[in-house]
């Protein structure tokens, strides 16, 4: 270890990319994907489908058309939003399994509010709906947060339970107060709300696709979360609390407060995911609105290295994977369960490969240390 010379302490916040390392990591990532796909190929063969056709349609399905690309962005948007919240929570060392429920709350609020104030103009209705949806999700995150802060109730337990409660709340509202009146008139009693007023619909970015401006909002928020976590005092405290609650306490940081805050913010972002699903994609509240994004968002956040900017490509990759897999299912007509299985394998192999990459780069650094002397 060398003593840094007095006035030029090196600072590596300047971006310096280790290309060999990056190449190795990307190579390993591709290798683990390949491995998962190989297993998938075997299963496809067993099911009597042609893996080459399957995988080539998977690829062209995502990258071969405007629709495929936009569709993967549509899926990436809620994943990114949920993932951002997960980043904040995990940084404070709080585990939020409750994104599903928080997402539902955001969606419920967006639906109720925009129907209630359907006469408002877009410029007023859209921002208010988004903010209120965020707050509703945040409230759902606040409950486990405050229980943890005040009563030390474990957040995994509460967030899992709150998911179930949110689901029942949605059932309750969709079978009564929020049910589509047209469904009652027609005697179908479908579990969906009335169509939302067009004033609240997020503008579409590409005609004839579902891609909506929520995607842009999500990316901007990712940058905002990055700034929040690494450039602001509150972000600093959240990270400090997550890394060492004892030292944070000794430094006068109110640990429970920041844990609760991070859960609340995480809930808010999941709530936003619910909002954009409702006002960007569905234009109404439906059962199944969460599409499991609350769980896949956790995976996305971790793929993105729990870094807000990392979650941007991670969510896009994950979205593409889901779109491509569906496309493949349609092309070769295998049971959709294969898609779940394959995604699970990909998650397992990719996450498993990270340690190998870490160990490799450590070895490389150690070897470099030896060479220096």
């Amino acid at each position, binding site marked *: 270890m060398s003593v840094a010379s007095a006035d030029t302490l090196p600072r590596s916040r300047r971006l310096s990319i280790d290309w060999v390392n990056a190449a190795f990591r990307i190579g390993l990532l591709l290798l683990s994907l390949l491995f998962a796909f190989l297993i998938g190929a075997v299963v496809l063969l067993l099911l009597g489908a042609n893996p080459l056709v399957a995988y080539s*349609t998977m690829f*062209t*399905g995502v990258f*071969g*058309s405007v*629709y*495929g690309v936009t*569709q993967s962005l*549509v*899926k990436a948007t809620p994943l990114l939003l949920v993932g951002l919240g997960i980043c904040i929570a995990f940084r404070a060392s709080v585990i939020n399994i409750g994104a599903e429920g928080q997402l539902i709350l955001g969606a419920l609020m967006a639906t109720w509010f925009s129907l209630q104030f359907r006469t408002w103009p877009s410029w007023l209705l859209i921002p208010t709906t988004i903010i209120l949806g965020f707050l509703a999700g945040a409230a759902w995150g606040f409950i486990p947060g405050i229980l943890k802060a005040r009563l030390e109730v474990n957040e995994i337990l509460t967030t899992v339970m709150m998911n179930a409660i949110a*689901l*029942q709340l949605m*059932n309750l509202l*969709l*079978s009564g107060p929020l*049910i589509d009146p*047209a*469904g009652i008139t*027609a*005697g*179908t*009693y*479908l*579990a*969906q709300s009335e*169509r939302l007023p067009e004033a609240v619909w997020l503008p579409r970015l590409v005609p*004839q696709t*579902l891609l909506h401006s929520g995607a842009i909002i999500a990316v901007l928020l990712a940058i905002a979360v990055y700034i929040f976590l690494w450039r602001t005092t509150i972000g600093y405290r959240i990270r400090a609390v997550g890394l060492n609650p004892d030292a944070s306490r000794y430094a006068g940081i109110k640990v429970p407060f920041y844990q609760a805050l991070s859960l609340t913010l995480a809930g808010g972002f999941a709530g936003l995911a619910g909002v954009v699903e409702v006002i960007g*994609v*569905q*234009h*109404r509240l*439906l*059962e*199944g*609105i969460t*599409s*499991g994004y609350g769980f896949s968002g956790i995976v996305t956040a971790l793929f993105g290295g729990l870094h807000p900017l990392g979650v941007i490509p991670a969510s896009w990759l994950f979205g593409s994977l*889901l*779109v491509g897999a*569906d*496309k493949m*299912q*349609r*092309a070769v*007509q295998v*049971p*959709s*369960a294969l898609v779940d299985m394959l995604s699970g394998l990909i998650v397992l192999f990719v996450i498993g490969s990270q340690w190998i990459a870490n160990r490799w780069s450590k070895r490389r650094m150690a070897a470099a240390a030896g060479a220096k002397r």
Partner: protein
Amino acid sequence: AQPAAPAAGGAAGKPLRVAVVMPSATTDMAFSQSMFEALKGVQKELGGEKAMELKYSENMFKVPDAAAALRDYASQGFDIVIGHGSQYGSSIQEIAKDFPKTTFAWGTDVNTFGLPNVYAYTAAAEEGGYVNGVLAGKLSKAKKIGVTGPVEVGDAKTYIDGFVQGVESVDKNIKVSKTWTGSFSDVALMTEAAKTHIASGADTLTGSSQSVVGSIGAAKDKGNVLWFGTQADQASLGQNFVVASQVYDWNGILKEMIENRKKGKLGGEKFVLQLKNGGLKISYNPGYKLPDDVKKAGDAAIEGIKSGSIKVNP
């Protein structure tokens, strides 16, 4: 997207190409399975794969994925694209505008959005519910009937509402109690709900959704409890205690759509499965010996509904 290569030409030229997108699995013993089997039946009738190409996407409970699938099938040049889920309405409405030459069908709902290439279909589940209710009212000795359902919406609600009306038409003193489990897939809780009804003295059960297989199992365990099914024929799950099932038969409307399309009518109509038009059928389980007078009451209810002399409110 690249259009899939058309299937090898059949005798009658190009085959009819039909695609369906379903919210649950093709093996759910309920909603999705009923449509899938009907489609396969039609395919067989028309002359197999040479005459009709059939593609499906199942477990599409995520609506954006379903929308992607619907659009994909349409852009591949499928003739008829079916969105078999009421949650797909908005997607159909948007996509149908972009593919005016494709026939879209969706349900269960009654709204064609005023588009000339959209069919809507639904099932008057309350009608079969009423008939099942009449039969159950006659058969329940304990005068206690249990109903298990997922969430009080859609045809789970309308079926059960009809069922209650049917029971009441027989005897107002029969107690029908309902439990909702809050989940379409929680079989264990559904089983327990049925067991709770049985423990409270109910000797006759019915219910809706794919998780009622659990309730049927509970009835089977108990031995002397009767079951009434809906959506699909559930006799295979209980040879001697499943009395009757209301069966959704999509065959008729599917064929009508195909015929219409041949004649150049791409949509703009709504279909309702009813007892009257044969879309709903009451399938008596041959393995269960139904007393004649009860069967007569059931048939009378069917006739009454068909003729309009009995009104069932959804």
